[in-house]
């Protein structure tokens, strides 16, 4: 068929245009599709729900602006949940740019929930060193952290004084886009100190974390924007996760159509080759 021959050499810019439209149109005309909740995300939610008031959650923003679209909604949803449960947030980051992004989310939501910096949450910023730093941190936070994100002595803050070692942390929530990230928290912090770890990762990294979940080293996982959308559904928050799911749905359907079309073209080409009289 001529049309299939034409599609076989389709200009890739047409594909890009279709993808662009598939992303933009649902943003302008929301579909409001319901989001199902998967077990890994439910585990994270249940874990935070089970924490007693005043428990300290260490949130590690291990991502950069490139992964902001996937992980920032999860950051906001987790902070929202923690503040609603009156949990304290001790934020840090293994990536330099992550702290600025985490700070933005903390500031915004702290104002909404009337939380006070220093007693309800602190941000100690970026800490270099990866695995080595995590081992020192778990033994004695003072070895690694002396000042907070703004340069204030950590001991001048009530929450800063409360956290001395891994024992004082009830849960680690890492929002991770690569290395160093969730694997380091699991292999070094959890393995050495036993602190439970929950994670939010980009969608591409999520499959790699399933072995850790199956072995119990990871409590739960928010995978990509879908994970963030599920969590927003659980905490009843309409954020960028849920907004983005409409676009993601349409793009996924489009990708499947491209795959089907590609295979129809392949079958057509094979048929032509094996047809009698074919060159």
């Amino acid at each position, binding site marked *: 068929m001529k049309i299939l021959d034409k599609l076989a050499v*389709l200009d*890739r810019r047409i*594909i*890009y245009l*279709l*993808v*662009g439209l598939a*992303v933009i149109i649902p943003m302008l005309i929301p579909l409001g*599709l*319901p*989001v*199902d909740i*998967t*077990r890994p995300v439910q585990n994270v939610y249940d874990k935070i729900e089970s924490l007693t008031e005043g428990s300290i959650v260490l949130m590690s923003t291990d991502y*950069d*602006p*490139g*992964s*902001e*679209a996937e992980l920032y909604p999860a950051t906001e949803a987790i902070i929202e949940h923690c503040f609603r449960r009156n949990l304290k947030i001790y934020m840090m980051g293994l990536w330099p*740019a992550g702290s*600025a992004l985490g700070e933005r989310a903390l500031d915004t939501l702290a104002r909404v929930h009337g939380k006070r910096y220093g007693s309800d949450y602190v941000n100690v910023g970026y800490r*270099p*060193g990866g695995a*080595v730093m995590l081992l*020192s941190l778990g033994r004695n936070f003072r070895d690694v952290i002396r000042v907070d*994100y*703004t*340069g204030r002595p950590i001991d001048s803050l009530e929450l800063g004084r409360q956290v001395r070692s891994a024992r004082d942390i009830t849960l680690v929530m890492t929002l991770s886009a690569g290395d160093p990230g969730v694997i380091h928290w699991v292999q070094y912090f959890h393995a050495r100190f036993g602190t439970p770890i929950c994670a939010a990762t980009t969608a591409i990294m*999520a*499959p*790699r974390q*399933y*072995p850790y979940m*199956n072995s119990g080293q990871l409590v739960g996982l928010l995978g990509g924007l*879908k994970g963030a959308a599920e969590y927003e559904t659980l905490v009843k928050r309409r954020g960028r996760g849920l907004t983005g*799911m*409409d676009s*993601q*749905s349409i*793009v*996924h*359907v*489009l*990708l*499947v159509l*491209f*795959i089907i*079309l*590609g*295979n129809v073209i*392949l079958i057509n080409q094979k048929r032509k080759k094996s047809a009698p009289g074919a060159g």
Partner: protein
Amino acid sequence: MKRTIPLVIVFTCGFFMLTAFFIPVRFVQDMSQMLQNWYVGVAAFFVFIGIINLIKINLEKIQRKLRDWQYSFILLGFLFFMMFAGFVLRGHTAGPVFQYMFNYFYTPCSATMFSLLAFFVASASFRAFRAKTPEATLLLIAAVIVMIGRIPVGYSIWHGFPSLVEWIMTVPNTAANRGIIFGINLGLISMALRVLLGIERSYMGGGD
């Protein structure tokens, strides 16, 4: 001598770090930590080497008016401006100018590059996801199920889709990932032993 000293350093430090994993004595652990801190210190110093290299190459391009020298001008301009904003125009933390550049230049540019993946996944899917072999067909079917099952549309089509996706991720995907991880780490151990014993030396630039 030029080759021997680095090999001796690699052997000594490598085997020390390996044995330190099995010796919990504080002195040994502190030595191990010190070696790792040295690496971090050297790596931090090398940031300057990189910046110098960047400036040198782009200045040469501007001086000799090579192709696209204007972009080198823009690159160096922004490099120096960001350094000025970060080191000079600041208080206890990054100043407003640096924060502005970070929030409204760096962050959107970074996110834009990451967003290219959406387009490239589409073109790669169209071009490369073809059922040419039975294995490719199996991969294709699993990919389609996971792609549809992980979006609300999949749940709307069939409520069982997410559970099927979870099974694919938890069972065959985990099994395959574990197998790959085992193989990779065994290869890594073998390469590490070759490097430690000095059998593998090409990374140093030398012959075998």
